[in-house]
């Protein structure tokens, strides 16, 4: 079973994301800070990471850099989710190695099809 990390400091959003992904055939691990996720990454390797960008202390940029510069971790797919809509910032994220960027607000179906494209899992839920 494929493993997906979800990193999001907003508890409500974290909960919503879990609900959105609960029907896909994957193991979900949620973190409310990038730092704790990074600690966990030293022991296991997920297939995909969904990560918020703006978080206190340790933000999405720093996290992405850390992953993509580590040869052991750089093949992990990363989808950045953010309210940021600045093209320059999105370009920077892609430069850093982000696989996808999803701008908030987004349709649930959009997120599900991105996950399917990136790690090829079957999405059981109805996607309209």
């Amino acid at each position, binding site marked *: 079973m494929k493993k997906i990390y979800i990193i999001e*400091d*907003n508890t*409500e*959003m974290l909960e*919503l*994301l879990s*609900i*959105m992904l609960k029907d896909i055939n994957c193991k979900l691990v949620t973190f409310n800070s990038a730092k704790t996720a990074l600690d966990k990454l030293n022991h296991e390797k997920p297939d995909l990471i969904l990560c918020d960008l*703006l*978080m*206190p202390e340790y*933000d999405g940029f720093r996290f992405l850099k850390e992953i993509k510069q580590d040869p052991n971790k750089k093949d992990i797919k990363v989808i950045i989710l953010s*309210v*940021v*809509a600045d093209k320059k910032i999105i370009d920077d994220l892609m430069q850093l190695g982000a696989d996808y960027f999803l*701008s*908030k*607000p*987004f*349709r*649930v*179906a959009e997120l599900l099809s991105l996950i399917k494209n990136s790690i090829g899992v079957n999405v059981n*839920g*109805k996607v*309209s």
Partner: protein
Amino acid sequence: MNTPGSYSLNYKLKHKNGKFIYIEDNGIVLTDLRGKPVRILGSMRDVTLKKLAEDELRKLSHAVEQSQVSVVITNKEGLIEYVNPKFCEVTGYTYEETIGQNPRILKSGEWKSETYTGMWSDLSSGKSWTGIFHNKKKNGELFWESAHISPIKDFSGEITHYIAVKEDITEKVKNEEQLIRYREHLEEMVEERTAQLNTQNEFLRSLIDTIPNPIFVKDIQGYYTDVNPAFERYFGKKKEDLIGKKLDFVLEKEEMEIALETDAQLMKKRGIINYETYFTSGEGKKMAVLVYKASFGARDDKPEGIVGIFFDISMRKELEEKTIQALNKEKELNEMKTNFIAMASHEFRTPLTTILASADLVEMYYNKWSAEKIINHVKKIQDSVSYMTSLLDDVLTLSRADRGKIKFSPSISNLRELCSHLMNEIQYQTLPGHDLILDYKLKDEIFNIDSKLITQILNNLLSNAVKFSPEGGKILLEVTQKDDIIQFIVMDEGLGIDNNDLKNIFEPFYRGNNVTAIHGTGLGLNIVKNAVELHGGEISIDSKLYKGTKVTFTIKPL
């Protein structure tokens, strides 16, 4: 002796005393009846004196003949008896032509008859006369001569002759005439130049006097030597009082520095200086002026004084300041717009994300989920909408405050109740997370205050304290009074505000660097500041990064 007759001889003999004497020797030869000379009868006379007088006369005559001045001798009747060769040379008449003539033959008619009358009256009374004639030569040419005429008297004092000694002074007179003409020409030129200068002076004077800008002239020591009416009007002082005074007579102390400095420069070396400064007018109005000053003088390296003019540029300055203000305002607005867009994209997208996610999920699972689960998502949508509404309210409050639409409207209110009610409400919203303490130190509770404004202020400050503090953090609201001013302190143990952010923290949409990941509009403190000022108070913030923040504000109850 052999021939009869007489003789006469002159000869020189040596006298016994060694000197020569002249002898005139006359004699006759006496004959007998037959005519035979028998003896000589004669006499010898010492004629040395006569001989010497004759010699003298010959010398004098020679002198007269050779003289370079004309000599004319007339008889008592004025008829010419003698003229010397110089006379003939000057007048062109021969000796023969003049003898027996009256000297009137020389009259040119250019001379006034009084001259002659005066001359004759002097001469006939035995005095000599000196004067000038303008006479005519034989060829008609006019000439000038100076004459000295004196009568010659015989032993009895009777006038027998007149002698005139005359000198041709035509050249002299000509030179003199030329000199006179030259002098007259010079005088004319001077007169003309003076008239020109007068016109020029008048022109300059009327220019200086009618020019609406103050003009001044001062000497090398800095004393005013001239000012125009505009200068008098500007400083409200009379010209006669200004002349001989220095700068300190018209300028304020702080206005003198640049004036003195530039004066010193100009007095050292000829030049022009202009600068902007302030001159307080006679009416006490401090006005921006543009001063042009120049040193003047006959020599480049030696200024003799300073002349200056100045222009009132207060209108221009005002306009410049207004333009700068307008530009700043525009810049502020632009910054605000940028900040607003950044805020809006963050703060509106987050609740929108929740709304869209919940709506999508309800659509996907409405036939699988329990009613409770569905209601839960509907509630999320409603909460997000109300959060967005409050965001919009803040923006509207700001725009209303900006347009001066928010009014101070005080009413009799219970301040203690207002505070404790607010504390309870905040405590309820934060659940058990924070420790909220109210320290109400006033003995009175009822004040004439705008409870709406105070609620707005405290609500924002306390919400901030909660939002930016860790769970379990202590939050204190202290209310004290000093004279007629009420002071509030809201203190937390939260994130604090960076020093760099403090100066901008009251700007709309401005947010501290350490809170970008925490939701907020950046409007709260701006709204608070407006409200405090509407209530006649002041606000200040004291903060230490990651230690806590203390906000102090005052209000004036009516």
